[in-house]
């Protein structure tokens, strides 16, 4: 079983729709949960990160973490064609001795928002 599972899609939605992207994970030691957006032929760009459980909102984006279910979600409201990209989830725990992180990624979900 992979540590992080993410449905690769592709997912196609009409402009203005609410998009829900999800990942599940198996390692209960993960404490940090991240979502990235990656446009074609570019590096990933960090969208949001949350620590432990709960919700975090930033404009049209909301990240949710449910540690009891080992399930994280990213919601995009009023989706725009410019949101068309691959969305990656990633998780980490903190190596306190080195003060550093190692990220474990999902495969990414390819999203297309149709005008």
């Amino acid at each position, binding site marked *: 079983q992979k540590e992080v599972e993410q449905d690769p899609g592709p997912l196609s939605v009409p402009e203005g729709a609410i998009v829900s992207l999800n990942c599940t994970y198996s390692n209960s030691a993960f404490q940090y949960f991240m979502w990235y957006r990656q446009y074609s*032929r570019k*590096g*990933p760009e960090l969208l949001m990160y949350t620590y432990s459980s709960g919700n975090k909102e930033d404009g049209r984006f909301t990240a949710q973490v449910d540690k009891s279910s080992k399930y994280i979600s990213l919601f995009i409201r009023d989706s725009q064609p410019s949101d068309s990209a691959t969305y*990656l989830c990633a998780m980490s725990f903190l190596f306190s001795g080195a003060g550093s992180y190692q990220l474990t990624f999902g495969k990414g979900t390819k999203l297309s928002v149709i005008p």
Partner: protein
Amino acid sequence: EADIYQTPRYLVIGTGKKITLECSQTMGHDKMYWYQQDPGMELHLIHYSYGVNSTEKGDLSSESTVSRIRTEHFPLTLESARPSHTSQYLCASIGGGLNEQFFGPGTRLTVL
């Protein structure tokens, strides 16, 4: 905009060649990482560094090597490229916290 750079962006080479992929950042980040990304697959960590003269291998077995002689520079070297090395290589750095992380644009390597 992120101040992390990778060169070259695209590289096509023959089998057996030695290559170095460059990664530089001007943010003074201690933590730097190399990932390999194949289409439709996860990013896999191949090397990381927590600071000057610190390098470690990641989860994915790789025939590449890295060095960290200066904080801003984290080059990756393949001594003898093979077709199995064909992939996209992404460099990243993290500053004080996870909210300070940036990826470079990637190097797309093709080995013939």
